[in-house]
């Protein structure tokens, strides 16, 4: 196929993982015969059998705890949480075990598990189905967190997550599952996340936990990941009409943060705005802003802007367009980075 959707790309990545390494397994609620409520695991049980791809009882701690035990037996499990909001029942496993077991065991036990989580909002869901959990995961030690923004990125980053010897939380932007895109040639993709064969050679960092420049610009850097990257690209297009050249940086890895990549971009533009769906208070934007403030004090022409949610639960569907970071809000935040000196 010349084009693919993110759902197809993720499905292909999982299929290739299962085909390449017979120690990989997929487990979760409705991932087998049903192929996942978002069809990301569609056809995999049929192809790889019930031993490799299987449904569990409806218990998230059970799923993640079982995945930990599977690692102890030398497997490489890929577990699915059905929705972001249902990661919380598994949080004790994440915080008390996934984050600690390697250290607890003095390095004897590795946890090469991947936790896939359909994430974020914007699909008119009921309560609990639109959460941004990146802060809860990224504040935990020993856990890596990644979130793709396009189909080909999703393929490459999921392969990298599964190949990683450490636990990786993989946050899938559910509102982008059906986004379609020209497929990057297969060979360029495998391991692109880890090898960083992405679009921009200049963003290349040695170990692969690198961000990527989606669009270059000299005036201000928009920083986002997952579903918000597209929002930033839109805002950048609007800004360009007004003659403002916006660089859009897709973080990809939320933990570790690509400090060098962030600093390199913002050192050029001297202005930055972070955009996410999570509440502003202690959203990942706080970390990015604090970090840029530390590294680029004196270089920054304006405070790092943060576009995110107020201190309230994700609202009812009727309000989500207003709640989510709109291009208008992003443009306003960009505008502020130019007004700042006057203030």
């Amino acid at each position: 196929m010349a084009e693919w959707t993110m759902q197809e790309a993720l499905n292909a990545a999982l299929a290739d993982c299962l085909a390449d390494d017979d120690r990989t397994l997929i487990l979760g609620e409705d991932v087998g015969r049903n192929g996942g409520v978002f069809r990301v695991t569609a056809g995999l049980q049929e192809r790889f059998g019930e031993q490799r791809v299987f449904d569990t009882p409806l218990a998230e701690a059970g799923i993640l705890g079982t995945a930990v035990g599977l690692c102890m037996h030398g497997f490489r499990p890929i577990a699915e949480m059905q929705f972001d909001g249902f990661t919380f029942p598994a949080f004790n496993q994440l915080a008390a075990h996934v984050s600690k077991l390697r250290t607890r065991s003095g390095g004897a036990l590795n946890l090469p598990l991947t936790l896939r989580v359909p994430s974020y909002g914007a699909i008119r869901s009921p309560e609990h189905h639109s959460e941004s959990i990146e802060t809860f995961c990224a504040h935990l030690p020993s856990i890596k967190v990644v979130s793709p923004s396009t189909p080909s990125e999703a393929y490459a980053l999921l392969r990298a997550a599964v190949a990683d010897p450490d636990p990786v939380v993989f946050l899938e932007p559910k509102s982008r599952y059906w986004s379609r895109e020209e497929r990057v040639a297969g060979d360029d993709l495998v391991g692109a996340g880890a090898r960083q064969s992405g679009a921009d050679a200049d963003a290349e960092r040695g170990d692969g936990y690198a961000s990527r420049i989606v669009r270059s610009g000299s005036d201000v850097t928009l920083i986002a990941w997952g579903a918000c990257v597209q929002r930033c690209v839109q805002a950048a297009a609007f800004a360009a009409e007004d003659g403002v050249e916006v660089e859009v940086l897709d973080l990809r890895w939320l933990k570790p943060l690509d400090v060098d990549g962030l600093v390199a971009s913002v050192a050029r533009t001297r202005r930055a705005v972070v955009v996410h769906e999570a509440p502003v208070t202690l959203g990942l934007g706080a970390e990015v802003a604090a970090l840029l403030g530390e590294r680029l004090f004196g270089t920054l022409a304006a405070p790092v802007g943060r576009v995110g949610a107020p201190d309230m639960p994700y609202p009812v569907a009727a309000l989500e367009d207003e709640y989510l970071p709109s291009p208008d809000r992003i443009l306003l935040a960009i505008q502020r980075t130019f007004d700042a000196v006057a203030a």
Partner: protein
Amino acid sequence: MSTIESPPVTATSELLSLYAQMRRTRALNDEAIALQRQGALTGFPPCTGQEAAQVGSAAALDPAVDFAFPTYRELGAMLTLGITPLALMAPHRGLSFGGAFDAREAHVAPINAVVGGTALHAVGWAMGAKLDGEEACALTYFGDGASSQGEVHEAMNFAAIFELPVVFLCQSNGWAISTPTERQVGGGSVAARAAGYGLPGEQVDGNDVLAVRDATARAVHRARCGGGATVIEAFTYRLGPHSTSDDPSRYRDRAEEEAWESRDPIDRAREQLRGSLDDAEDHFARIEHEITLELDAVRAGLGLLQAPTMREQMELAYARMPAATRAANAAWLQDGIDG
């Protein structure tokens, strides 16, 4: 304060009212499915086939004293407990989370989608009732799938240890989305778990509205009288999809569905009534007429349901909103206007 209800009489008049409630449920359920297809609702989890389990159990409660904790699928139970159809449509129109009603007044907890969690709220409420010396009970609904959650275990154990007036009502409807009950419930029975906590557990034909009504009434009676908690497992079947975005043909056989369609709980009650009432058809006609009127009102009212403003939704977050939060919210709203 309630007087203790004695176990129920299964009079025909009672069956008739349960039947009417089931029909009303089915009609509103089908209307909601249709409305979703038309784009008037964002999604809907049908309860088709589970009307007897829901209406029968809810009818055994007295919402003046007891408190019910529904999941997302309890349309029939909530209607029976006096929540209005429009209040129950609001969530599926994306206007409300828990339903557009006052949970404190109604003695019905808001609709909740994290399976399992509200079993513990029922335990806490029941503890409060016991501490206050009330003759009242909490009833928590949950599915065969939800029975796998750790919180349900903790709830049963707490209820046992504190001897609390809780009814754990499991609708074992064959499926948790695509996972069949036998791949979900180790040992095959949620009621059988009760013994492990020293609690009575009872299995009941969930498609027999009177049987559900009676089993629940017994458990409610026991709870209100200080006899502690009961686990009831009502065997029924989710005839429809998990929700309007689910396609059951991916994971289950049409034959199984057909077998259960032939055991439709509403058909069964109708046949019983035909056997015991001379003027059954007149009653049915009256019921259908009332339902028609109600559905007309629902359709008319749906468009009038208001979305909250963002400012209103923000206010819900705190009973006492801090000044700093209020200021940040105001700035955020202002940005929405400026942006």
